[in-house]
């Protein structure tokens, strides 16, 4: 039995791109249907950054990897609200210089920096973007203290959180998409089908006409087929799934060829006091070497501390019992490397690969060394870098040894910032879509998520994704009204 739905606009994915698109379109009177592969999980019902959260709200339980030398572990949200439900909530406007350079290099029309920044202002107000009114976590203070002692630029990054007056860092309420844009879209008449995976968009020439989905809640295989007819479809599945969906639809021009990420390397640092706050991350970032290298704090659940020590268990393992005194930090770089997302016929998930350049490798090594220096300055007793064969770093001499021993091929490299797999712009040699997300070679297939960003922005990307999605959604409404 096949269930059938109709709508004006089908939106695939309900993350930063999909939720904002749905709200703008539904409020403009379009009959919107959102399909989301993951479940709707209420904020606060799962412990943040836990394995349980990974089971419920991440794709593949959080174990996804871009193959390469080294391979890069990445994570994607897979739930109503997408990555916005599980992420650290650290808000950065896209840098003006980045927007200017994208406009010129990719020939993006009607892309004034002022317009994008004024949409950012709206987003900041809707998401209650603000700094922590009260106390910071010890892990935050460590990063600030270490950077201050070195005279390195650092700052508190505001988050999309609401707090009661004077509340501390751990008392915020995350203003993710299930709290903000999705309720707005639903109030304006949009519908959402969670746990529905879009498999394929069916085309007739330049027009997409329907979509084939699987209802993942259906008890048996024979009862889980769903089809949807629509006027237009907007794909917002995130930087890995969006190109896979397009390729399965036969749309390949510049699709999935230019995956961009912010690769990170990590370390764990042990202090004399309890510094671990398992359910939260540092809100400080060190920007002395930005945009090339930035430092920040990672989730530090005891399980994640064990994970950070795994590669050198014989030498580092005994530290695991002191996990309350340990916290995990990362050095992130802007990468010049690029990756591929490719569907393989007959296989459900796409093949993802990434190649770091020589400069990327060098930057990761420099980043890890400087991050370890911040930790020592902040008073760390021992630092455990995450690469195979790394020494325990207790002082500057160990640090020098560690820097010479570092080899990125032996490091645990990971990323949570993925973009640029269907870049937008009027330069059709570089771009998969036009300047407003319409996929080349089609009349009614749009992309409106992180895949559109022509390059990794060098800062946490969600604000860039949302601002561009709102811009394009408004343009869509204006075009369809005319």
């Amino acid at each position, binding site marked *: 039995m096949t269930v059938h739905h109709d709508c004006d606009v089908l939106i695939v994915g309900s993350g930063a791109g999909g939720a904002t698109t749905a709200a703008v379109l539904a409020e403009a009177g379009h009959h919107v249907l959102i399909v989301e592969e993951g479940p709707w999980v209420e904020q606060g019902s799962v412990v943040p950054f*836990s*394995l349980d959260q990974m089971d419920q709200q991440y*794709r*593949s*339980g959080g*174990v*996804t*990897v871009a193959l390469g*030398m080294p*391979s890069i572990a990445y994570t994607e949200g897979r739930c109503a609200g997408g990555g916005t439900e599980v992420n650290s909530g650290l808000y950065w406007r896209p840098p003006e210089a980045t927007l200017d350079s994208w406009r010129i290099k990719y020939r993006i029309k009607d892309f004034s920096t002022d317009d994008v920044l004024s949409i950012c202002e709206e987003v900041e107000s809707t998401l209650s973007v603000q700094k922590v009114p009260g106390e910071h976590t010890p892990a935050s203070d460590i990063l600030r203290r270490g950077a201050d002692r070195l005279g390195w630029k650092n700052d508190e990054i505001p988050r999309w959180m609401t707090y009661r007056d004077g509340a501390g860092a751990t008392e915020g309420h995350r203003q993710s998409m299930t709290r903000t844009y999705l309720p707005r879209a639903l109030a304006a008449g949009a519908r959402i089908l969670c746990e529905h995976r879009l498999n394929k968009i069916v085309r007739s020439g330049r027009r997409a006409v329907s979509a084939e989905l699987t209802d993942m809640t259906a008890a048996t295989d024979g009862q889980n087929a769903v089809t949807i007819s629509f006027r237009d479809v907007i794909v917002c599945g995130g930087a890995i799934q969006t190109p896979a969906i397009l390729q399965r639809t036969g749309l390949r021009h510049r699709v999935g060829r230019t995956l961009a990420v912010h690769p990170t390397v990590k370390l764990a640092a042990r202090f004399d006091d309890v510094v671990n706050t398992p359910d939260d991350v540092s809100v400080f970032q060190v920007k002395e070497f930005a945009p090339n290298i930035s430092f920040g704090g990672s989730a530090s*659940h*005891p*399980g*994640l*501390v*064990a*994970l950070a*020590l*795994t*590669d050198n*268990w014989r030498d580092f*393992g*005994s530290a*695991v*019992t002191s*996990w309350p005194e340990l916290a995990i930090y990362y050095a992130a770089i802007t990468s010049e490397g690029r990756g591929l997302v490719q569907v*393989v016929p007959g*296989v*459900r*998930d*796409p*093949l*993802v690969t990434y190649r770091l350049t020589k400069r990327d490798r060098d930057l990761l090594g420099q980043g890890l060394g400087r991050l370890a220096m911040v930790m020592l300055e902040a008073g760390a007793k021992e630092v455990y870098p995450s690469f195979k064969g790394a020494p325990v770093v207790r002082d500057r001499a160990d640090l020098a040894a560690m820097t010479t021993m570092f080899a990125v091929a032996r490091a645990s490299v990971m990323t949570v910032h993925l973009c640029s797999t269907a870049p937008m712009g009027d330069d059709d040699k570089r771009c998969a879509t036009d300047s407003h997300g319409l996929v080349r070679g089609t009349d009614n297939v749009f992309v409106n998520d992180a895949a559109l960003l022509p390059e990794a922005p060098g800062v946490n990307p969600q604000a860039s994704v949302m601002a561009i999605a709102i811009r394009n959604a408004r343009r869509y409404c204006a075009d369809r009204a005319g």
Partner: protein
Amino acid sequence: MSDSVTTQRVPSSVARFADGLLAVDLPRLPDSNRCDAVAFIERRIRVLPSITRFGVQAIAAGVHAAGVTLGHARVRRVVLKLPLPLLTEYPRLIRSLGYAYIWETWPDTDVDGGTVEGRAA
């Protein structure tokens, strides 16, 4: 192989390898904890993206077949030592998943797998 795996349904190649690896790495980890950790590892491997999953299962089957002929403990030692790019990722993945689960579920676990209950007994 430990009781925790032999008393279950027929274990997969991944489960056998994971159980043996954790038993050697964390000798004082109670059998029931190891059994839970192995079940978690199997669950996560089942939901890996297709291509990674095929790769892991192929390596697991090869390692298992070699173990049947040459002895599981011996093959495990070789796998841990051989610096072959894809092969080294296999025990690394199993350990990462297993350790993350163990310390998240029982954060008081000692580095050799000993637990508070074990210490008290």
